[in-house]
């Protein structure tokens, strides 16, 4: 419903995807437009379509204090009126062209993405709209009010849901003195004024703060022209500095009451930022712990052996600043304590001992073998290339991915988990647990 309410879920989904993403043999071309925006391009001529995504470092981490939700609402109303066009004209013209405009704001990023047919008579007018909404949004005051009202209602609704309550409490406990821990509330959204939105847009939706990714039926020359035109009217701006790194989490147990039949449990702590060398040992190790779906230890012990949960998982989500390690499960409220005990037992043992040789081989076989599946659509190419661009990962990230997975040893995993997943610092949040 609300982009803000969905923040932690969206982040989790993105993190899951990229925690396991990679590939070889995809040629990502990179250059800097004369505006200063960084551009990433993958030519893919198989289908007559084009995807263009513009990412700005304008996620909720940059919300003004006391106005949490500002990043999300700025992105949310960006395409509800721009230039001479009102919100209906924009939506109708896109529909007439068969084009889709999407995106949203998560913790680090605000994204605007366009999918269009590549025929010039469709592509060019669709790109005009993309440029218009990014550079000349109207931020109509009445529309802002309407969307604030809808957002507040959705936030109130989310705060009746055990999973949303748990997610919010989890992020607050992980990041007690850092923007990652601050989340939209009805009163912080109510406090947002049009001037705040305009100022946020001016400061963060700039060329220096943007990466543009193009994937599809397009020549390099055309891609260059499009990137030039798209970003020409963005203010030059400057790359926005990051806040100080997050400090220690509010470790220990946070237990929240709720009438649900099932308890929701999150266990975790902040770990690493994007590009940290511990990423590969953590990725490979986590496959065995709780990232490998049905074959992970958590799944086998919590679900298969005991029938405690339908869903149980762990993941590592590197962000621009240290992102979370997280275990999640849901179980009948009366057995929550038993399920936590089992999950903690598995985690503590894994941190101490790491995977077996056999488990390590299985993790590598899947992470390396599944490589082609991570690249077999334009959508996946776009997701990969835009992450590499936005987070400034090396351009050969995908080419070296398999070798880096292959090189991980049990000692590497033990060392990385020992550094990053310290049992004494863990946060545990339960909602509706007896």
């Amino acid at each position, binding site marked *: *419903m609300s982009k803000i309410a969905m923040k932690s879920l969206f982040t989790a989904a993105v993190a899951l995807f990229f925690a396991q993403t990679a590939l070889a043999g995809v040629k990502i071309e990179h250059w800097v437009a004369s505006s200063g925006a960084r551009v990433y391009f993958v030519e893919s001529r*198989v*289908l*007559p*379509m084009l995807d263009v995504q513009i990412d700005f470092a304008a996620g909720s981490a940059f919300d003004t204090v006391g106005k949490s939700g500002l990043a999300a609402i700025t992105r949310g109303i960006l395409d509800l009126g721009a230039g001479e066009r009102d*919100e*209906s004209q*924009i*939506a*109708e013209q*896109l*529909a*007439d*062209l*068969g*084009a889709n405009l999407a995106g949203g704001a998560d913790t680090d990023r605000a994204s605007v993405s366009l*999918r269009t047919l590549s025929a010039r008579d*469709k592509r060019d007018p669709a790109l005009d709209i993309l440029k218009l909404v990014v550079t000349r949004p109207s931020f109509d005051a009445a529309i802002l009010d*309407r969307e604030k*009202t*809808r957002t507040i*209602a959705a936030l*109130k*609704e989310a*705060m*009746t849901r*055990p999973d949303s309550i748990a997610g919010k409490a989890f992020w607050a406990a992980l990041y007690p003195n850092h923007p990652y821990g601050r989340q939209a509330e009805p009163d912080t959204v109510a406090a947002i004024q049009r001037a705040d939105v305009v100022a946020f847009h001016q400061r963060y939706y700039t060329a220096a703060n943007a990466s543009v990714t193009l994937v599809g039926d397009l020549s390099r020359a055309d891609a260059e022209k499009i990137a030039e035109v798209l970003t020409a009217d963005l203010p030059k701006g400057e790359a926005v500095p990051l806040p100080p790194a997050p400090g220690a989490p509010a470790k220990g147990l946070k237990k929240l009451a*709720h*009438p649900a*039949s*099932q308890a929701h449990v999150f266990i975790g702590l902040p770990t690493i930022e994007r590009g940290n060398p511990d990423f590969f040992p953590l990725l490979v190790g986590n496959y065995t712990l709780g990232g*490998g*779906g*049905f*074959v992970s230890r958590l799944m*086998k012990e919590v*679900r*298969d052996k*005991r*029938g*405690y*949960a*339908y869903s149980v998982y762990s993941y590592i989500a590197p962000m621009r600043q240290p992102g979370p390690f997280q275990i999640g499960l*849901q*179980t*009948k409220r009366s057995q929550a304590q038993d399920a936590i005990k089992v999950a903690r037992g598995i985690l503590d043992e894994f941190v101490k001992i790491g995977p077996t040789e056999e488990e390590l081989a*299985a993790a590598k*076989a*899947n992470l*390396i*073998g*599944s*490589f*082609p*599946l991570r*690249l*077999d*659509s*334009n*959508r996946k190419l776009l997701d990969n290339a835009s992450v590499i661009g936005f987070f400034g990962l090396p351009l050969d990230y995908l080419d070296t991915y398999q070798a880096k997975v292959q090189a991980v040893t049990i000692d590497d995993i033990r060392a990385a988990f020992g550094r990053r997943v310290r049992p004494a610092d863990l946060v545990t949040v339960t909602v509706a647990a007896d």
Partner: protein
Amino acid sequence: MPYKLMLSALLAAGLAAPALANPYETTLKNGLRVIVKEDRRAPTAVQMVWYRIGSMDEVDGQSGVAHVLEHMMFKGTPTVGPGEFNKRVAAAGGRDNAFTSRDYTAYFQQVPKEKLEDVMALEADRMRHLTVDEKEFAQEIKVVMEERRMRTDDNPQSKLYEQMNAVAFQAHPYRRPIIGWMSDLEAMTAADAKAWYDTWYVPNNAYVVVTGDVDHQAVFALAEKYYGPLEGRTLPVGKPQTEPKQEGTRRVTVKAPAELPTLIMAYKGPTLRDVEKDKDPYALEMLSAILDGHDAARFNKKLVREDKVALSVDIGYDGTTRGPGMIYMSGTPAEGRTVADLEAALRAEIARVQKDGVSEAELKRAKAQLIASQVYKLDSMFGQAMEIGQIESVGISYKKLDRMLEKLQQVTAADVQAAARTWFNDDTLTVGVLDPQQLDGKPRRPAMAGRH
């Protein structure tokens, strides 16, 4: 992990659909059909095995058994131990899962193309040789109960949807939830699951869909090798369980912890049976796009943006089903507005279509979106396999997908108006209301629909 296909996914898939190039098909001697769509854009492949059996084939007291069996399908055969199926797919660099709907149960693997043979061997093995072990069942039924708690018991909208169907249908098995009533899950035994498997999991009740970077002749040969030796068996003949004509609006209220009320209005709708002669399913599909196909479509523009009577509102129509079709409208009233206000506003929008029809511009726009979506859908090999599998599940050949698209393009404004007049009929309407309660169980705010 196995999951049941939710309504929204079915609705999203909708009717739209042609196949641009090749699909090839063959039928093995044991009755198993194999459909292959070659798509060489990337070195990967998808295998899906579809069984023409879903929750609508269950009987009272055993609701949920189709879905429970889907879970048990991962618990091993004499040659592949419990959990080994997932392990082998993972080792092959693949991903796998399964889903159960009212109409069918389907299993799939996405793999690097060299591994297609491995997963075909695995699926063939469990088509006839599943072990339904008592101990494994005892654990897995608990997992399914947790799934029910998560998806339905603690989800007010799901609960409302479950209750609404239980009221909208009386004789037809669509009245039962796919995941099953909790008491039926509690009473279910391994023998129930085994009986379900033995009755329905035979090659002549299944079809295999493969898409990806494959050669259809090679896939046919693999199918012959692995599925060919399995024996077919005559299937039991089901009873029709025809839903009697509904003769008046029905209303149901569900109380659950929530902030906002929700309204669902569900009309009995037509189902597509004859691709050439049927008209209304196509017309209603286009009407859905006109009402809710983009941000400035009628519902969002009028009800959310202009009149601000709703925070959100949707319409969904699924005409490709084995059982009765339904047209669903649902939404959340804006603060200060009631579900009765929202119901009246939705009725007014439908009355506007019935009285004045829709414009040529609106129809043209919906058709432009449809054409573009036919290109975009080719971006997903899995989506292409789903499309073939779903249309086949209702007994319509995938070969008709192109024709269905043409029929959608031929829909006129007069067709849309006529279908709206026929099907938005109060006598076949069921209205469901979520009455939100505070977390401590007290009522939050009045949410009852007005009487009509």
